[in-house]
Each structure stands twice: as structure tokens, then as C-alpha cells.
């Protein structure tokens, strides 16, 4: 919504929208794009895929990759939008769901700002429409008194709307999407009217499927979506990279000392998380049980940050096994009944035998006891 944004220049905002940050790339793609575009799309599906996955245009313009992951997923996502099916991006925290949805909207519609943030308190008005009560009282119900939601605006304008954290929205509110997605229309019973979606309208939702306290999608709603699951980082190296970078950023904002010596510990935390998550040791030789927690990259980041704070304030400033052991235990053992056994088994059968992990083993034994 440009009303307030116009007062500040793009350079000053803390975080520019995708379509502003990569305006040059989008323009270059649009200029070279000679393939057919679906109605009201700013780019053809091929160009959208290129925008996300990166590449070099014939004129030498380099398109930076926005998403590093399987090409297949991006192709399915773009194709889904092109077939006017709604797209549901699933994944545990830290798998770039929001990032992908923002860039998809920016590339397809040139506008990523039509956004409904899902929370436990998201009301129906956020998806359908609200009323301007001053207008309503003064002039009675009319289209002028209607405050359209982002979804409604996207329907009238034929653009892409995003719904973040769909599963956090209460189930009854979620289900208002069913009519919109299947009939492509939004009735306004108060006025005896309806808003019909024009071509080009589509919806991208993101959801976290392995978290506690979420409202599962009803099967009726689920049927309206094509689902793409965004995977966790494919390699341990990639994940260590992500964790190190994020820990560094968070650490700076919390004025924690940066810990270059802690890379070993970060690698260890990432390894533990990956092994328990995958149910397989990193050498691929031993299977292990998986605990009930998600053990996402985001959690690894918070464990390391916590350990860093612990070592800075109560330790010698170097990230040591003892600083992260408690955090790892807390992340792994979510359900004290079953997860504790899983954790101990992992400690005894995998950690104890591993070279150079003795300190970590002892620290974990200490906090587990």
C-alpha cells in the first residue's frame, strides 16, 4: 500500500519490497521475455522461474538466484500459479517459504504487498472485507463504505495475494477462502452484490506443517491448493552457513561478541539436528530414532545464539560444548516421555563413540541427568 511509503525514498526503508530491490532484474527479464504470458502476468512463467532460480540473459544481464534449492519445486510452484490453482508452500521454520512467496508475487504481479498475515487473531474481515463505520452510519451500506481486504483487492485487480502462516488462522476464518478459491467470487450479502475475481488473480499461502498449536487445514480447503513442500537445506555445509550467518546477525543486534571459534560448535549443533531430523547419521551408516520436535534450522540458530549469550555473560566468551548442551537438550526433548529415550539412545550409540565429541558427550550427560 503506497500511502505511507511515498513519503520515504526506497533507499531509506529498512527492508525494501522484492519488486523494488530487484526492479532492475525484473525489468531486464520483462524486456527480453517474448514467451506468452498469462493474463495480467508481468512475466511469462519461464521468466518467473528464471527470476527465482537465477541465470544469465542473452544480453548478459545476470539474474541472481533468489531460491537455492531443487529446480523442480520452483517449476511446480510457477506452473501451479499459471493454472490458476492456489499454491500452498509448506515447510518447517527457516526454509524460505515467505521469501519464495514474496518473490513469486513480485515476479508474477509486480506487487508483493497484498499480504494477509495469519495469526491466531486474524478476523474474517482480513480475508473478506470490513466496513468504514463513519461512512456506514452516515450513508448506509454501500460499496463506498466497504473496506476491501488484500484478497478482495487482488480479486478485482487480477493480481497475486499472499497469506502468511495460513495454519495459524482459526479454522472457521480459514474456510472463508473456500468460496474464493473454488468459485473465484466473494459475495457481499449486505449489498446483495459480489466481487468476481478477474483473470490473473491467484493466492499463495505459506504454512508450517510440523509445529504445535496450528489449525490444520480442512480437507475442503486443502483440496483447493497445490502443495509444494520446501525442504530443509540439502547439505550440512549449507545449513552451517545459514546458521553462522544468522547467528552473526542476531549476535550483532544483541551486542554479543562474535565467536569465530564457535564454528566447530555450530557444526556440531547442526550435525546433531540433522542426524536426529533425518533419522540417519551423517556417515549414512546408522539409523537413529527421530524425536517429536521439528529441529528446524531456525531452532538450531536459537540454540547457538543462546549458547553464545551464555558463554559471553557467564563463560569465557568462547562457545563451548557446555554452552550449547542445555539448548540442544531443550530443543530435542519436547515430549519428556518418548524424546528422552530417543535422546539418550542417540547419546549412547552415536555421540559417545565419535572422535572429538567426548566433551560434548560429557556436557550432554551432565545436563541430561
Amino acid at each position, binding site marked *: 500500500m503506497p500511502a505511507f511509503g511515498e513519503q520515504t525514498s526506497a533507499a531509506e526503508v529498512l527492508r525494501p519490497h522484492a519488486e523494488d530491490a530487484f526492479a532492475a532484474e525484473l525489468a531486464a527479464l520483462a524486456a527480453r521475455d517474448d514467451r506468452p504470458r498469462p493474463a495480467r502476468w508481468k512475466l511469462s512463467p519461464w521468466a518467473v522461474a528464471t527470476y527465482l532460480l537465477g541465470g544469465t540473459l542473452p544480453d548478459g544481464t545476470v539474474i541472481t538466484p533468489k531460491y537455492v534449492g531443487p529446480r523442480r519445486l520452483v517449476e511446480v510452484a*510457477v506452473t501451479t500459479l499459471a493454472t490458476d490453482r492456489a499454491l500452498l508452500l509448506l515447510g518447517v521454520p527457516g526454509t524460505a517459504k515467505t521469501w519464495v512467496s514474496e518473490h513469486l508475487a513480485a515476479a508474477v504481479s509486480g506487487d508483493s504487498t497484498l499480504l494477509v498475515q495469519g495469526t491466531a487473531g486474524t478476523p474474517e474481515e482480513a480475508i473478506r472485507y470490513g466496513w468504514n463505520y463513519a461512512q456506514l452510519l452516515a450513508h448506509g451500506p454501500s460499496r463506498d463504505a466497504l473496506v476491501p481486504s488484500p484478497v478482495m483487492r487482488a480479486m478485482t485487480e487480477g493480481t497475486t495475494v499472499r497469506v502468511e502462516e495460513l495454519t495459524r488462522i482459526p479454522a472457521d476464518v480459514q474456510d472463508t477462502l473456500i468460496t474464493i478459491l473454488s468459485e473465484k467470487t466473494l459475495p457481499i450479502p449486505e449489498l446483495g452484490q459480489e466481487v468476481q475475481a478477474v483473470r490473473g488473480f491467484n493466492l499463495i499461502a505459506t504454512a508450517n506443517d510440523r509445529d504445535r498449536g496450528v489449525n490444520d487445514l480442512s480437507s475442503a480447503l486443502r483440496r483447493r491448493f497445490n502443495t509444494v*513442500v520446501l525442504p530443509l537445506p540439502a547439505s550440512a555445509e549449507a545449513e552451517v552457513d545459514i546458521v553462522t550467518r544468522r547467528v552473526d546477525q542476531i549476535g550483532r543486534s544483541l551486542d554479543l561478541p562474535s565467536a569465530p571459534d564457535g564454528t566447530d560448535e555450530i557444526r556440531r549443533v547442526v550435525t546433531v539436528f540433522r542426524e536426529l531430523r533425518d533419522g540417519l547419521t551423517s556417515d549414512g551408516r*546408522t*539409523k537413529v530414532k527421530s524425536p517429536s520436535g521439528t529441529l528446524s534450522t531456525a531452532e538450531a540458530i536459537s540454540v547457538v545464539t543462546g549458547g553464545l549469550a551464555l558463554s559471553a555473560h557467564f563463560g569465557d566468551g568462547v562457545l563451548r560444548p557446555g554452552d550449547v548442551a542445555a539448548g540442544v537438550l531443550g530443543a530435542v526433548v519436547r515430549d519428556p516421555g518418548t524424546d528422552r529415550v530417543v535422546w539418550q539412545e542417540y547419546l549412547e550409540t552415536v555421540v559417545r563413540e565419535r572422535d572429538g565429541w567426548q566433551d560434548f558427550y560429557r556436557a550432554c550427560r551432565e545436563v541430561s541427568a
Partner: protein
Amino acid sequence: MTGTDRTGSGGSGGPGGAGEPGGRTILLGVRHHGPGSARAVRAALDAVRPGIVLVEGPPEADALIPLAADEDMRPPVALLAHAVDEPGRSAFWPLAEFSPEWVAVRWALEHDVPARFIDLPATHTLAWQAADDHDEDHADGHAGDRAGGREPGDRPGTAAPDVRGDPLAALAAAAGHDDPERWWEDVIEHRSPGEGDALAPFTALEEAMTALRETGEGKGEGEGGERGALDARDLVREAHMRLQVRAARREFAQGVAVVCGAWHVPALRRPATVAADRALVKGLPRTKVEMTWVPWTHRRLSRAGGYGAGIESPGWYAHLFAAADRPVERWLTKVAGLLRDEDRIVSPAHVIEAARLAGTLAVLRGRPLPGLGETTDAVRAVMCDGSDVPLALVHDRLVVGDVMGEVPPGAPAVPLQRDLTRIQRRLRLKPEPAQRELELDLRKETDAGRSRLLHRLRLLGVGWGEPVASRSTGTFRETWRLRWEPELSVRVAEAGVWGTTVLSAATARAETDAVTARDLAGITALAERCLLAELPDALAPVMRILADRAALDTDVGHLAQALPALVRSLRYGDVRGTDTGALAEVAAGLAERVFVGLPAACAALDADAAEEMRGHVDAVHTAVGLLGDARTPGRGDLGSRWRAVLRVLSARATVPGTVRGRAVRLLLDDDELAPEEAARLMGLVLSPGTPPADAAAWIEGFVGGGSGGGMLLLHDDRLLGLVDAWLTGVPADAFTDVLPLLRRTFSAFEPGVRRSLGELVGRGPEARGSVTGAGSGIPGFATGLDTERADAVLPVVRLLLGRDPAPDDNDLVGADT
């Protein structure tokens, strides 16, 4: 019967429409197991109507061709060639319904046209194989057809390496595709038949292959070595094929059709003199070979199988071949049906959306038609909520498929029988219908061989010998009851699908059994049998699966059940000199998991479950004891950790009484617990605060179950006193509850022990308290010790023990029994 007529009609729209003159030789270059190739072959045959069909394959199988028309013959099947004197040396030519070669053979049979195999006889190729084995060179001798994926002659475990590179990959790269399989599918397999000239695709392909061979051969000459040797074999094969084609052309004026791997087409086209070809095929090594048809499965056609024909999706190909039209829509409907059967909600709307998505994806990826990749992506996104779990099912059941071939009973005998006969002769073990017992001493070479054979046959379901309890207790003896029933021959024939020798078949069977075994105990039992049958190659996968299953099994009971068998196997392995390092490792890991899970698993059990758990504790205790002796690197302190677990068990109130009592007893027996401490624990349990039923269970655990607990009570009057005092203190209403349990406990004691206990108790607590003192003794015994008579025994005892006279001889008097 095979859906051949339906699709054939497309090509027969204009027989001879291509204007082929009769008497011409047409070369149909194919990709083995390519459904598009198969369709094209049939269309071409319908159009040309040749007088004879020549197929790339071993000519020894010519006599078997009529069997292909048999009613009981259902593909997938394979032609099996094996050396007569060495059944382990064999080669397979798998044929699926959608294989061009199969289609060609069937076409010939349906149209009463002779069909012949024209490849180099297996008698030479198998001889080559032997030479290769001899040179330790495991490159497959006739891994020929680059264009056809891998040649089917692979032996288990040795994937044919693409020594000269993949011509398909080169062609695909030239066309700008990164995936050669996909390129081939787009260009050849997904073409619909019956459009225009039936021979056009073959002509185009031949041109491409010619160009490819020219560059490839130019390159190949410079490198020589192994590559040159393999090239030479290809040249020999092609020379043989040329000779055969030439002979057929003379014989059949009506025209000759040749179906062979696309790679060979340029070579067959090339003019070469008969003399030169003859020279090439002259003087080749020979070995006596027999051929037969064997049933095959889709799973084995796929790359995952040991005899993989190198196609990843036989089910998908079969579908492409059989589907009349709209293959994607039909496929998605099939997938929906499968998912529905598995109770997933999949509506026709899902199918519609998946078809749309697959179609659009194909456009986005620039493919003419959605392939397996696109349909799989669509199924995942639309029908499976993005999850790979149901997708794995689709892959297993449909993409690969469960299809199993059948072979008519008239097919020649399988080589397994021949191998068995040979072994029987060597071990002088005749199959006799009369039952007899056989005593084997495993230290003797022949007897060990017999034992191995019998165990292997048992694994294969050929129950010739039945192991019976040996009269000797030594682990080096085995007793078998032998009886050869006539139907066992049938069993041997059935087992022929597993391999060509008893050893390889038993190995393959054991591996498959391990994958499909239901529970952990089943796999450990299998490991035991693998050791007995001496199948070292099977043991490794079985162990891997065992370790995986153990890691994921959350039921400690299963783990505890599996452990004893495994430890027993370890000991067998030791006796037979097998390398049991991996086994010990797995066993130690298993024990470790039991230790971690046992205390938690003992909480909140009812009486039956507690009794079962006590059995597990006993079994694990024995196993850990045995395991302690075995070499377990890095795990030497298993015993002490187990005792720590026992201590936890003995002290935890939520653990049922019988398990607690048993834990205390085991610790006591191992001298880990001082008798006073045991008495203290017993006193705690038998104190009035404990419900009588729980206390009785504790006693049952402590002394019951044939553990020789009676003697313990007899000799430690402190313990007996505690029991006695507790029992007399049990209130009258609770007494009837604990009575059955106590009866069970005490009735398990030996009669003598029971009588002595009764006498001890009968004398009352005061008298008993003075048993060791000067009080009245047991009837028939003096009240005190007659030291003089006791001393008289000492010289003999000293002699037995070989001990010097000690200064204080009375040491011995104090010693317990």
C-alpha cells in the same frame, strides 16, 4: 492377450504403404525395453510383413521361441543361459511385454513367420565371461548396446560399466538435453505410432547412430587397452549377426526384418565380406551351454534389482505400452485408484487438476508430452499434499510395479537343480525317500559341507533335512533327519528364480527375506541361519537391516528378544570361524539400546507383561554375559553398564515386583550386591507397607522360575526368616490372593529343596535361628559338627585340588558347598 492387436492397428493403416519392395532387409534399431521402440517395431513389421524376423539374442534359444506363444507364458520373463558344468556362470536376457524383442518374437509367432536369434551364441559369450573372471576383470564381456541401455547379461552384483560412454547421452547432449533417458523418451518413446512412414523413426535413428559410431570409433582407436578389447568383442558379435542376416536373406525372398540395439544398426548395414566376418568369428572359446525361460519380475527389470536391466520405471513403460490413448490421464486415474485403496481421499477433481498441472509443467519444461517426471511432480503437489511418503507407495506399486512373469511347465529345468545334483554327488549325500538320521561332526570338512548344504536348502524352502536335537551337547555336532520327498524337486525348480547355484540362490533369498521380515526377532533368526548356512555375502545386508530395524524399534521387548539369538549366532560364528566383527558390533549396539530403554519400558506393566519382562531381563542378562566374552572393541564395559541398569530397576518403585526381585537376584548372583544389602532390600519389600500381592511378586522374581532360588533360601536363613515372618504377617483376606503366586514360586523348586525348606520352617524361627549354632539339627544329622570325621576327608580333597597342606586346615571346613 497382451494388448498387441489394439495398438498394432495404428500401424497397419497402410501395410506396404511405405512402398517397401519385397525381399528387402529392414534393420530396426531399438532401445531395449523401450515401449516406444516396441510400438514402432510392430508398426514397421505390420507395414513390411517380412518373411523372417531376426532378433538380437542367443541363437541357442531358437528352440525355445515357440514357448513364447504358450498360454502359460506371461512376461516379464528372461532367457537364461548357463554353463552346463558350472551353473553359477550364467547370463540373462530379460524380456518384458513392452520389450521390442518380445514384440518381434510374438509378431512372428502370430503371423506364422519364423523367428531367429542372431547374436553371438551364448556358448562363446559365457566362455568370455569365464575368461574375464579369470583375469579378475569384472567388466561384462558383452555389455554391448550403448543405445539400448545396459545389456541384460549382467551377473548379480556386477553392474556393467559404461566403458565407452553412453551414445544416448552424447546424442541427448547434442540435442541440448541434460538427461539422456528423458531425451530418448521425448524423441522416440512418446511418439504416437501410425503417423506417416512406419520406418521413418528407424531411419533417423540409424543416421544418428552412424554419425555417433564414426566419432566414437575414431576416438576409440587411440585409447586401446581394455576399451579396445571390448570393442573387439562388439565387432565379433556384429560380424556374427551380419553372417546370420546374410544367410537369412538368401533363404527368405520375402524380406528379412532385424530387431537389434540401435547401436549395432550401422555395423549391420556396413558392407563386409563373408570371408572377413568368418575370420572374425573363427576360433572363439567355447563352453557347453543350456538355455531356458525363467520367470522375471518388474522389480528385477528395474535398476534396484541385482539383475537390473537398467530401466527405472518398468511399470510406467508397461502402462505407456498398454494404454490405448491419453496415457497421462489414464496413469493419473490409476494413481488415484491406488491412493484411494490406501484410504487417501482422492477425488476426480484431483485427477483433473493433476493432469492440468502435468500438462502445463511439460510446456514449461519444453517437453512434447508430460513424462514420468511431470506426472510425479503433479501427483505430489495435487494428490499427496507435497509429501513424498504416499509417493513412495506410488513408485513402488505402479512406477516399478509388482508384476511377476510366468513360464510354462514345459520349459527346460533350471540350473539350480543341476548344481544341487553336483553338490550332492560331491558330498556323497544321496536324496533318498526313506527317512534317516545323519550325525554330523562339523570339524570334518565333508560334514561341514553337508551341514551348509542342508541349511542353505532350508533357507530356500527345500525341506530335505530337518535339524533335530543333537544327543551331544557340543556346538560342533549337528543331527539331521533326512527325507527326500518327490515334491522337493518342484521346490527346487521354484527356488530357481533366486539364482543358478545353491549358494547364490540362498544368498539372494536371505537378502529378500531380511527386507520383508516382519519383526526384529525374525531378522535375528535369519542372521543365525545365514551363519549356519555360511552365507557371508548375505550376512552383511542382513546385519545392516537388523541394525536399522533395531534403531527404529521402540519396543524394548522386541530388542530384548532379538539379542539372545544374535549372541548365540556370535558363538556359532566363532565355532565355524566366521568373521563376526560386524555381528558383535550390532549385538553390542542392540544391548546398548536395551539398556537405555529398559527402565522406562518396565513402568506400569500388568502381571502378564511383568512376567514377560522378567523373561526379557533374564535373557538379556545371559546375553550380556556371553557378549562380555566376545570381542567387542570399544564396548568392553557392557557388563558394568548392564549392572547399573539392574540397580536402577531394583530400586525404582514403578517397576513391577517380579522384575525388581529378579534384578536384585541377578546382582546378588554376580556378587555385585552384598547378601546383607539383598536382605535389606527384601526386608523393605516385605515390610507391612507393601501390598502383599506386590511382595509375593517380588519373591517370585527373586527366587522363582527355576533359578535355583530354593537353595538360596535354604542356605541363607536370614532371607528365609524374612519370608517366613512376612508370610505369617499377611492378613487373612490378602492371604488367598498371594497364595497362587507363592504356590507357583515354590512348586518350581526341586522336591528335595522343598522338603528341606518345609522341615526348616516347620521347626519354627527359634530353632532355625540356631541351626548354625549348637541347636538341634536336621533329623538324621548330629547337632554339632564332627570335626574328626571331617578332617579325615581332607587328604583326599587336598589331593584333588593339588594343594599343599595349609597351616590351617580348617579353611576348608568353612567353605560353602
